[in-house]
């Protein structure tokens, strides 16, 4: 099988933003011929709602406290991170616990481009064209055991590479987790790139998590450890403010953050808000994971 990792893709094949859009316009123009006038406005609208934000927006407005608490700090400070070479330690109840290089971790898998809505718990939202690998494919390769009920992810702990860790603003290293069925969901992605390019440091290079129906803080960045565990992992923001940030963190317009409403969200760059979608618009695919659960208690 052809192995294609972002770092292997020759530069001539990397889609730049202009070509990326050109391709979409071309696809849309084909659609225009096929769909005809009747179906057009609706289909265009649907496409508009998932129009990715610019590369510049996605890579210059980040919450990555390891490089400072300001949104523009990570872009300015993340140059100290050395994302290559990089290894990920696989631990816990798994058949092949070992330290894998990123290349080994994804060997045999094909990267996919996924255009996802991204919703921050702070009530801002964007759309990003991620490049990554379904986490389930990686988990299947690693073969977790029967005691693996949760997956825990840990960010690099290195105050030299991550100067923000010199301050105790959060309990370092950053830890996040998913229930096994959430981790195995086809939407859940280990992301290595954006806009067809390797993930910039400020977005969590070389590999981060993206769970599109959850608030952005679940998307742990610069992952160095994946652990298969039996109990629900203690996660960073939940430790920092348990009444404000839960383990599940599903996007939910009906459950407010104690200090602000989650009923609406504001797309980046815009002045007015729009309604928040249940599970960030991915309810059809993921609502069944939470059947019978009290989402107000399990926020």
């Amino acid at each position, binding site marked *: 099988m052809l192995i294609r990792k972002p770092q292997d893709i020759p530069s001539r094949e990397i889609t730049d933003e202009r070509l990326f859009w050109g391709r979409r316009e071309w696809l849309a123009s084909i659609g225009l011929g096929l769909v005809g006038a009747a179906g057009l406005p609706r289909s265009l609208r649907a496409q508009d709602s998932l129009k990715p934000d610019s590369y510049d*927006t996605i890579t210059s407005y980040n919450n990555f406290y390891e490089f400072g608490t300001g949104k523009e700090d990570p872009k300015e400070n993340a140059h100290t991170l050395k994302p290559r070479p990089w290894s990920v330690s696989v631990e816990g109840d798994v058949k092949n616990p070992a330290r894998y290089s990123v290349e080994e971790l994804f060997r045999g898998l094909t990267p996919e481009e996924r255009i996802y809505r991204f919703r921050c718990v702070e009530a801002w939202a964007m759309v990003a064209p991620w490049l990554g690998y379904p986490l389930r494919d990686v988990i299947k390769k690693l073969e977790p055991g029967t005691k693996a009920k949760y997956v825990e992810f840990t960010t690099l702990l290195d105050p030299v590479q991550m100067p923000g860790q010199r301050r105790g603003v*959060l309990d370092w290293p950053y830890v996040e987790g998913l229930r096994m069925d959430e981790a195995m969901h086809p939407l859940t992605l280990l992301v290595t790139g954006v806009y067809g390019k390797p993930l910039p440091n400020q977005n969590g290079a070389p590999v981060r998590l993206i769970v599109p129906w959850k608030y952005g803080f679940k998307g742990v960045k610069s992952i160095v450890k994946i652990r298969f565990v039996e109990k629900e992992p203690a996660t960073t923001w939940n430790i920092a403010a348990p009444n404000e940030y839960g383990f599940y963190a599903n996007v939910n317009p009906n459950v407010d953050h104690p*200090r602000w409403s989650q009923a609406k969200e504001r797309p980046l760059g815009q002045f007015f808000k729009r309604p928040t979608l249940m599970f960030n618009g991915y309810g059809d695919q993921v609502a069944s994971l939470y059947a019978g659960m009290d989402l107000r208690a399990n926020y």
Partner: protein
Amino acid sequence: MTEAQLIRRIVKPVLWVAGLGPLAYQVWAFLTGHLEAEPVKGMEHFTGRTAIIILFITLTITPLRRLTGWNGLIKVRRLIGLFAFFYALIHFSIFLVFDLELSFGDLTKEVVERPWITVGFSALLILAVLAITSPLAMVRRLGGKRWRAIHRLIYLAAILGMVHFFWSQKKDIRLPLIYATVLGAIFAMKLFLARRRPVSPVPAAGAG
């Protein structure tokens, strides 16, 4: 040039330019696309911080007057205080227009249910009362003693404003901590001066 002329021709025009500067900057940023990726949050933070800073400056007028012995300072205190209210009002209006979309039902809900909004809103109401009672006619009507008692609420407004600022932060409280330190220093200076010398009657709000 007499002191009155100096204040009227130089000090006050300078204060007007300085006071409208932050607003001009926001308008420029708005028109030229220099607001941050979350423009509304950016404007809210900027105008909120501006209101607090100007409120602090208002609080330093009396101690500065005592330290320098220049009584003319008191004649510009009202103008500076009104600018603090002006920015607090803009800050609130941005929240009301862009976050609540002018829904007064939502405003009530926010003020009642979210303590940090309650606190900020209370500070705004206090500043509104102080602004309304700031004209000389109001000082005369209320009488100096009562007027001064009402206007001591500015300390409460400053404290509530700071609580609101702290509460607005997600985790990193360095910036409000710096502001709180400044406010603490102002309070300490006021206490020190008040002890050293009994309070001399302040010509409330001045004549200008």
